[in-house]
């Protein structure tokens, strides 16, 4: 293969790694939006807490990769449910802005709470032995392989849960109609909590993978990654889960390409400008359904 095509193949691989992490977080945004039409701005910080839980499990408990991942996902899921029950549930009938502001507050609270414990960036130990394979000039690390395959597996499992199981059917039903679905015997509160738990667990998994791939973590890391994932969800059509995945892969691709062509500091500028343009042109995203406003 020529020099140039190897370079770009390598970039595609890097983009896949970043995109799968974005996709896992974007799914959480999209699921919550789909069911509550609420932007859970604290979601990026649940991802951050996930990364710190991974750090704790790896350093304090000395756990290997798989138990760390399971522990982190469980911890993040519990945190997600806790936030939903304490902060969002009382506001379900309040004006929508109240819920958004509360979410911002919860996010800031999580950041500063973590900051109180870890004022300095922390180094996450390597949990996966790093093996590099050389595939015709393109290098693939064991970590990249695990991140990409694990994310894809989680996404397939989620897709199955949402499309094929009773819980998933209940989720889709609630996002369709909130007045009559409870009358059909669907436990709305439970389903909403499950949605938050699943979304947060995915964010926890993303936190673990991020901490392994980019091993310096700090309490504010969730802000930027969270917003990016949120953009991915909006680009794909928020509320639509397959859209969130597509959006994440577009965003990851754009980011890596921008960095490959321009200085890396231009990344956020380009990404947010694209978001602005997209919202003005196609507010409902790539796969989203435009909302019809009735008078």
């Amino acid at each position, binding site marked *: 293969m020529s020099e140039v095509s190897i370079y770009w193949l390598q970039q595609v691989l890097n983009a896949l790694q970043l995109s799968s992490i974005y996709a896992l977080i974007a799914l959480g945004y999209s699921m919550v939006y789909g069911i509550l039409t609420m932007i859970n701005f604290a979601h990026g910080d649940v991802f951050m807490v996930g990364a710190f839980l991974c750090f704790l499990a790896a350093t304090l408990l000395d756990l290997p990769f798989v138990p760390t991942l399971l522990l982190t996902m469980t911890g993040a899921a519990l945190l997600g449910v806790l936030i939903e029950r304490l902060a969002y549930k*009382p506001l379900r009938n309040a004006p929508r802005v109240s819920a*958004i502001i509360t979410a911002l507050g919860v996010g800031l609270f999580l950041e500063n709470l973590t900051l109180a414990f870890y004022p300095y960036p922390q180094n996450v130990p390597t949990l996966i032995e790093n093996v590099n394979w050389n595939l015709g000039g393109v290098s693939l690390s064991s970590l990249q392989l695990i991140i990409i395959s694990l994310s894809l597996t989680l996404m397939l499992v989620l897709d199955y849960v949402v499309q094929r199981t009773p819980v998933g059917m209940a989720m889709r039903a609630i996002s369709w109609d909130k007045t009559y679905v409870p009358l059909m015997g669907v436990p709305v509160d439970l389903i909403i909590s499950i949605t938050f738990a699943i979304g947060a667990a995915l964010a926890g998994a993303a936190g673990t993978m991020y901490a392994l791939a980019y091993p310096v973590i700090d309490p504010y890391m969730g802000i930027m990654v969270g917003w990016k994932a949120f953009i991915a969800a909006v680009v794909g059509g928020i509320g639509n889960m397959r859209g969130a995945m597509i959006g994440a892969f577009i965003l990851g691709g754009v980011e890596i390409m921008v960095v490959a062509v321009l200085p890396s500091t231009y990344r956020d500028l380009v990404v947010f400008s694209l978001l602005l343009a997209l919202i003005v042109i196609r507010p409902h995203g790539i796969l989203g359904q435009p909302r019809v406003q009735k008078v």
Partner: protein
Amino acid sequence: MRATLGVFWDRLMEQRWLLPLLVAVGLALAFAIPQFRLVNNYVQLVMILAGINIILATSLNLVNGYMGEFSLAHAGFMAVGAYTSVLLTLHVFPVAAYPGLFHLAVLAGGLVTALLGLLVAIPSFKVRGDYLAIITLAFLMIVKSALENIDVIGGPRGISGIPRLTTLPLVFCWTVALVWLLRNFVYSSFGRGVLAIREDEIASELMSVDTKRVKVLAFMLSAFCAGIAGALFAHLLQFISPRVFDIVKTTEILIMVYLGGIASIGGSIIGATLYTILLEVLRPSTVAGLLSWLPAVVFDPLNEHFIRHLGVLRMIIMPLLLVLVMLYWPHGIMGMRDFRGIIPLRDRLAHRTATPRGATGHGAADSH
């Protein structure tokens, strides 16, 4: 006795001279305090910060409270005003020779920011609610990212060595002037349009409200005020960088607005003042000073376990406060109400004939 006091209070509040008198006393104090060193520099600094925060909270309240949109762009507007004015005072205007030019720089900061307010106002014609929130957020991020990428103005390092030109009387005058401007806007026919848009955009359009024009005006006015506040802030801090104006700054202003209560100018004034003071009071040294009268048996463990850590703790307490306010006190201190002195007389009279009891402001019913 109480009844007499109540009547007296009511009568006092009705007086037309009350507000001008308060402003005049405030103005005299604002000039007297630095002149005669009535309070120390630290208290003066807190007062200046409170004034800047009042401008920020009141102007954000116009968009988030009165118009019912959710804008996150305020820190971005501040940044534009700050950078514009700083570049003018550092490189264009000979401020050292003619200090009066500083006022021009502040005004220019506000005007440039108002123009950028258009960038947010135009998408708001089509997009509302969550998506407009995202647009304002994207605007904030783009401003920050753009500033970080322009190396001529310091890039991520920012600009230091800004002359300290912001003074207490100046901030007082700007605060009074801008709050006055916002109050007049809110109670003008444009302000009625703003309220109508919040209640129902389509209905207000049918009732011949020029929604586009109202939105442009509201966004530009709000941005203008934020730009002025940013300019004043930069010449107080003497150092600015893109990081100063990030999403955390916007969140701070949001806390002030929602603590004070939406759609209330008096509420924003109270919210901003309370937040500024609270943030300062919660410093370890201040709390230790306030509680130093306690016996050592009580004070020492308290200091060891609580007060010494307040520097970090207050960063946790503030967002928690925001969440608690939203959960248990969604109207904030003065939500949808206002001081009688702020509401124009004709509105007060009209309202009194409509509803004899209760001193609420404009009778707009929100979906709370």
